[in-house]
Every structure is written in C-alpha cells, then in structure tokens.
C-alpha cells in the first residue's frame, strides 16, 4: 500500500470520527431531534471499503450509516442539515440520520429497517447488470441483519445471477443490547452463512484499515471483472451506546473490560501509530488534517444551523413522482 493511500485512509477515518464526536458534542442541544447510531470505533470498515470504489458505484447501508456516507464522499453540509431537519438536508428533512443519500457520491441510500436495503442493493446490482453499467454494489449491514430471512434470499439471488456485489458485514457482536450468543448458534462464524450460498466469504479484522482495504479491493475487483459476489465479515466494535450519543457500558449488557480491550484496538490510533512510527506522517501534517476537518465541520454546521426548516406543506411533497 502506498503511503499516499494509507494517509488517505487515515484521513477518511479521522474525518468520520470527528464528525461523530461533533454529534456527541452537539446532540444535547436538542437540535438534532432524531435517533443517531454512531459508528465510533468502526471507522476502518467504512474507510477501507469505500476507498476501493468510485462515485459511479453504488453503496447501500442501514441505520449505522454515517461512516459509509462520509467515506463515499457524501456531502457534509447536506448531512448536517439533514441531522438538523433542515430543508437543505440530503433528504430535505424527510429522513434524518437514519436516511442518508448522496447520489453524486454513489451513496444510494440507507434505511433503518434491519436488512431492508440488502435485497435493494442486490436489485441495484441486477438492474445495473441488465443495463450493462459497470457498477459494483456494496451493501453494509451488521451481523444482526444476517438473522433476517431476507439476507439469505438476497444472497441466494446474488449467487444465482452472479451479481457484482460486495456484502460487507460489520460484526460488532451486538444487536442493540443483545449479544450474539442469544441470537445465533455458538461456534458458528457469521461468514460461513454466505459460503453456504456459494459466495466466496472471508473474515478479517475490521479495525485494521489496511486489511479491510486489501480484502475489499480483491472483492471489488472480482465483482468488476464478472466474478460475482463476495461476502466480507469484519469484526469490530461500537464504542458508544447503540442509539444515542452516550457511553452505556455501565448499564450492564457488556463489560467495561471488553470495551476497553476494543478501545485499545482503536482503528484510528492503530493507523496513526503506524504512520508516525514509520515517519510517513508528521505531527504537522496530522495537525493540518485536524484543522481541515474542523474547518469543514464548522462550515457544515453553520450551514445547517442557518438553513431554513422545510415548510409545512412539504409534508405532501414527494409522495408520488
């Protein structure tokens, strides 16, 4: 991996982190009046996978989608405006945090029904193939979504039609507060489910952006060259509460120890250390990055705050074309 690329991946992760942290900071102002599912701790998957794509590809995601949207280059102003319920939001205020879209960036949409965008993504790949568009579709979802029947229906069809898809499962071990042990049989790795549908399936450390990138690149290449779908399971960890801006280790569904172990394995810290250690990144450059992000953030938030709310009658806009 070139230094340039690694720095790019690092920047992408850092940017996601800072955006999420800004939500943490501002959420208590009660101006973002919608549920938020933060991805702090999971940034490497978003950054690593999306770096292998172009805006002419197509990305889908679920409720925990901020990172995917941002890593694909989704417009930050439109993102913040959407969080604030403004008319200038990426969904004109119709969606909030759980519905993101930026067609120019290839981010087709995220929705909060668990598993809901999986068949839609498969269909997008199918539609693109029928139209001979050279599009790779990436669908992000959690390990919980693999319990929904529609996940299997989607994989079966993807395999049947040899569709250009990369299924990206972020296995963070929990569905809301429920551990895997209460939901799936013991000693069965998630990625083997996809294998059963004849889809090449791999498992990797989701907190190492280089490994994520390598694995995703192979999968995307396979898809692009007609080799069909791939399933990637990345083990990772969500730091904050399932929904909301707080920490919640104290409420008892997981241990502080477990959290701290994963915090140790912070994907951003990890890459930063490597970059610094090998002198691929200077402290000055790092500061520059932080400044760039912070500036962009300030602008976006100012934009969001100063944007108008949608008018009452927009309730009836866009129900039908």
């Amino acid at each position, binding site marked *: 991996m070139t230094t340039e690329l690694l720095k790019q991946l690092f920047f992408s992760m850092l940017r996601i982190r800072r955006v999420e942290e800004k939500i943490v900071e501002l959420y208590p102002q009660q101006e973002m009046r919608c549920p938020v599912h933060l991805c702090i701790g999971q940034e490497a998957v978003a950054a690593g996978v999306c770096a292998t794509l172009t805006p002419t590809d197509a990305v889908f995601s679920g409720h925990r989608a901020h990172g995917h949207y941002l890593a694909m280059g989704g417009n930050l102003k439109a993102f913040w405006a959407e969080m604030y319920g403004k008319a200038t939001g990426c969904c004109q205020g119709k969606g909030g945090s759980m519905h993101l879209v930026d067609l120019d960036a290839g981010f087709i949409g995220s929705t909060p029904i668990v598993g809901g965008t999986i*068949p839609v993504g498969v269909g*997008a790949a199918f539609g693109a193939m*029928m139209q001979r568009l050279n599009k790779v579709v990436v669908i992000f979802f959690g390990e919980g979504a693999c319990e929904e029947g*529609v996940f299997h229906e989607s994989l079966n069809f993807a395999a049947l039609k040899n569709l250009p898809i990369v299924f990206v499962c972020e296995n963070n071990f929990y569905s809301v507060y429920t551990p895997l042990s209460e939901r799936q049989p013991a000693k069965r790795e998630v990625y083997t489910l996809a294998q059963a549908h004849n889809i090449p399936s791999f498992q990797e450390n989701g907190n190492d952006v280089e490994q994520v990138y390598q694995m995703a690149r192979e999968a995307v290449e396979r898809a692009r060259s007609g080799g069909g779908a791939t399933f990637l399971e990345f083990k990772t960890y969500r730091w904050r509460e399932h929904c909301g801006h707080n920490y919640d280790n104290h409420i008892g569904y997981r241990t502080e120890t477990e959290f701290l172990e994963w915090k140790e394995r912070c994907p951003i810290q990890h890459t930063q250390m490597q970059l610094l250690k090998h002198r691929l990144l200077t402290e000055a450059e790092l500061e520059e990055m932080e400044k760039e992000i912070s500036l962009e953030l300030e602008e976006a938030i100012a934009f969001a705050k100063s944007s108008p709310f949608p008018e009452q009658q927009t309730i009836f806009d866009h129900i039908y074309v």
Partner: protein
Amino acid sequence: MNQREITFAQAINEALMQAMAEDSSVYIMGEGVPDPKGIFGTTLGLLEKFGSERVLDMPVAENGMTGVAIGSALMGMRPILTHQRVDFALLAMDQMVNNAAKWHYMFGGQLSVPLVIRLIIGRGWGQGPQHSQSLQSWFAHVPGLKVVMPTTPRDAKGLLLASIRDNNPVIFLEHRWLHNIAGHVPAESYTIALGEARVARRGQDLTIVSTSYMTLEALRAATWLSAAGVEVEVIDVRSLRPLDAETILASVRKTGRLLVTDTSWTFCGFSAEIVALVAEKAYSHLLCSPCRVALPDAPTPTSHAVAKFYYPRAVDLYKASCKMMGLQHAEVELEILSTQLDVPDKSFTGPF
C-alpha cells in the same frame, strides 16, 4: 370500427407485449412467469419474444425479490413483479410498504420506484383461507402506493400500460374470475389514466360503487333492478388509490343512495372508505343509509358447500338495493342460484 374481442388475460398479455416492446427497461419477473402455463396465460409468448433476461422466473422468496425489483427500479429498470396469489405478498409487506411506498418520499424526492406488482385474487374451487384473500384495502391504506383493480379487458390493458409507465409503485390486482371474460380491446397501445373511475352504467335512483369482479355482479343486479323499475348507476372504481372521489360524489349527489360492493373484507375495508367519504362529503344528499356488501367477517372456508354462501353475489346486491329503495323484492327465481358457485364458468375445472 374495430370491435376486436379478446379476453382479460389476453389483454394483460398484450399490454405486457407492447410495454416490453416500447421500453427496453421493462422486465417481468415472478414464479411461473416464463413457465408453460404463463400466469393463467397472461405471460405466454413473452419469453420467446424478449428472452430470458427480461422474462424470468425467480426463487420462492417474495420479500427478497420485491427488494430486488425495487433496487433494479432505482437503477432505471421498470420491473413488473407477479405473484399468482395475493396471499404470497403477505411475505413481502416489508419491502412493499417500508421501501417501495416510501423510497421517493424518504429521500426527499431523489430517485423513484417505477414498479408494478401484479397480484391475483380469486374465489372458489377450494382455495381456502390462505389462497384467496383480497388485500386491496391494506394497500390502499398506504400513501406512496397506487392501487389499481381493472374489471374489463379494455381497462386491464389500458390500466396496466399506464401502471407500467407510472413512475411510482403500483399494485395491480387481477381477479382470477375475470381472466376468461372477453370484451372489446383496441389493438394499439393506449393508457387509461390512474385515478379515474368508470361509470359502467348510468342511472338516477341508486349508486353502486364496485371494485373488480364485483362490478360484474353489480351490473347483473342492475339489470334485474331495472326490470323492477330502479335505475342503478354503477361506478367501477378501477383505481382505489388515487381515488376518483368526484365521480363517486357526483353520482351520489344525483341518486341520493349509495351501495358499495368490494371483493375484500367489509370491516375496515375499502368499502368503509367509500361510505365514509360520502358520509363526510355528501351527507346532506343521502336519502337513506348507505350500505356495504363485501366479504363477511370470516376467513375463507374451503368447502364449496359453504364457500358459495361466503361470497357476495348479484342477488345480494339486488336484495340490498330493493331494501334501500323500499321495494318488497319479489322472490324471483334468480338464475344465478341454480349454477355452481365456485367456478367462474363451465370451462373451469380447477385448481385456480
């Protein structure tokens, strides 16, 4: 004047042929679509003409395949998804309602889902509780969906072509007992606008608002009533959502009497909406209580011995109308009662 007659099923088939020929982004998918029976004949010949890429069967996975259709629509295709019984769509409510109906809305008008879902409803020949439901009232409840139920072959073709060209998800419900009925259908490609009811018969004494197959029963009742001196106006709704409220209200304002008949359950059903609409908007014109004649409040029993009492018929509309008109209805020997009631016609020998 071209008075070419073809059946409802042939009209559907012709609409599909023409839509696919006109627009290469139209494709059709469903269990049985390319098989030798071709969805009661409605998809026959499509495979040969348009190839297996555009005319395809699918796994038995209704929710997933609905999602697939939606996704392909987002990429510019115009899928037509078909289920041989509406009951199977119960597995796909998530994708139909959470995604198809809302995609355009929830992303602020970006992209749309030009999807047609053909669902076949039926009655008779022992289909029983899980194979003969009629769920239009559910679909009509959901903003973002359009809901169409043609009665005549001509409407079947024109409404299907309009549905396919529509950029929104359209639920297109075909009653199995209409498939073999013939009528005049223009050969060329044409559309009938969604959202316009059809006045199937003019009259000034009583308005019957009907959906799909019940329109035929209404027309039958109207003939008998005419003999008894009552002129019925029959309004074939055709499009349940958007609804042509004006045509219905105008008729009731004229006749002062409203009878609604529908193929779905009465309670919380589409017929309730029509009565409510009229009660709200034309209350002062009503000369008597409005009335609903739709499915009784029970699942479908299988035995033909009781199924024949389950489904409302022309005779029920006749009786209800007489009552509304204050007529002592003659104990007419109604022909309909002497025939088997679980088949649409003599050629039908099951299973569906």
